[in-house]
């Protein structure tokens, strides 16, 4: 367990000390929210109606943009090879990296949602429901993303292929995430999203570790 927490600590330290990539992702997240009113017009009631969807699209795009930092740097400087030979099984290492990645990329997005809520004139209820949906849904996004990142880790053009692979697979996350705001179906959607998040998070370390092993052979 100590090796596991040390791994998470290492990931967090790397993320905070090396250039603040997490902040850039938050910046991107907010920027997507900012350009939407230019595209569809500054009509506040319409923006308010569309805002949960816009926030979800922004979260999707930021998650995909952050995928590359999950395994790429560790693969290039050789620490991934080192980690593969550690006492921890590779599945546990991937799970640790997943937790750290979620803390670094998804939690700042959650903290930034009030800004988007203000800009897109969300009501308070819309805002906390969207934030809750993101809190439940982002682990699934990160876990799908880990599979995409692991599968493309050895590829020079991987940065573009991973989002194309992951996006169709994560459509259910989007459906249930936005569905949580519907008063008719919200309860069912919440349960579905929770189930999806748990299943994908449990399953993804195994698939990603298998891909990393294959890529490293």
């Amino acid at each position: 367990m100590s090796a596991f927490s040390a791994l998470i600590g290492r990931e967090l330290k790397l993320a905070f000390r090396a250039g603040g990539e997490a902040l850039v992702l938050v910046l991107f997240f907010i920027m997507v929210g900012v350009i939407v009113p230019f595209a569809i017009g500054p009509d506040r009631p319409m923006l308010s109606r569309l805002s949960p969807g816009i926030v979800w699209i922004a979260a999707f795009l930021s998650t995909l943009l952050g995928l590359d930092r999950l395994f790429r740097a560790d693969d290039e400087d050789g620490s991934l090879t080192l980690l593969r030979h550690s006492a921890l099984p590779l599945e546990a290492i991937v799970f640790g990296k997943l937790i750290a990645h979620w803390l670094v990329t998804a939690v700042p997005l959650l903290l930034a949602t009030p800004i988007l809520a203000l800009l897109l004139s969300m009501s308070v209820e819309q805002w906390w429901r969207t934030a809750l949906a993101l809190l439940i849904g982002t682990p699934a996004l990160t876990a799908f993303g880990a599979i995409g990142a692991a599968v493309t880790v050895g590829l020079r053009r991987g940065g573009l292929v991973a989002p194309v692979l992951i996006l169709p697979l994560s459509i259910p996350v989007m459906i249930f995430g936005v569905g949580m705001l519907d008063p008719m179906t919200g309860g069912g959607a919440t349960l579905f999203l929770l189930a999806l998040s748990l299943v994908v998070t449990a399953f993804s370390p195994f698939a990603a570790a298998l891909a990393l092993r294959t890529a490293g052979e």
Partner: protein
Amino acid sequence: MSVTAVKQPNWFSRLAHPGQFLNWSRYFVWPLAILTAIGFAVGLWFAFFASPEDYQMGDMVRVLYIHVPNAWLSMLVYGVMAAAALGSLVWRHPLADVANKAAAPLGAVFTAITLFTGALWGRPTWGTFWEWDGRMTSELVLLLIYLGIIALWRSFDDQGKAGRIVAIVTLVGAINIPIIHYSVEWWNTLHQGATVFTATGPKLPGSMLIALFTMLFAFTLFFALLQIVRMRTEILRRRAESMSRQAALRGVSA
């Protein structure tokens, strides 16, 4: 010193050896092609002349005989790819890699034809080319998954390594496709429900069923034919590549 007995390969691994595959599959190509041609001839005759018009849709109903077989194949091909993916991951079989690679573009084309004929059919009957209905949307997502897998195949230089990586993605997709399907159904539904396989028996007249099943049969044979030819081509292409690499090596060392 004891003589270790060499394990005799079973019939399946003998047949699945790439060189053996090239040998025995050659005898399947022409018979399959002829059977497919006969199947299409009979099926199209039934579809155009020996089956009734629909009382509402008129002749438009005949799109059914292309639309349904392609929709069936769009799912069957993914099943074949998932089985091949198991073969790559569990037995590391090179023929399974080849099968996955050969099937992906076929699946993408069958799925695209399903969507295209569906759009042609939807325009006169529903009044729209496209609707965000559950089944149509999951078919579209399936097309995107096929295209993603093809993109992944193409982005690898080393096809041997690509096989196992793509197999992982194929299996993840196979687990996901039912989830996507039911979530999209939950989201929105307009498409008509099951018509042929229902608890109370088929709701179509007999002549239409004959035409439909002949076309299903012909299209499935067509897929089998294309799959075998594509697998043969891929094996020969890999062989040619390794031969040219060896020739280049000899050229350098000589």
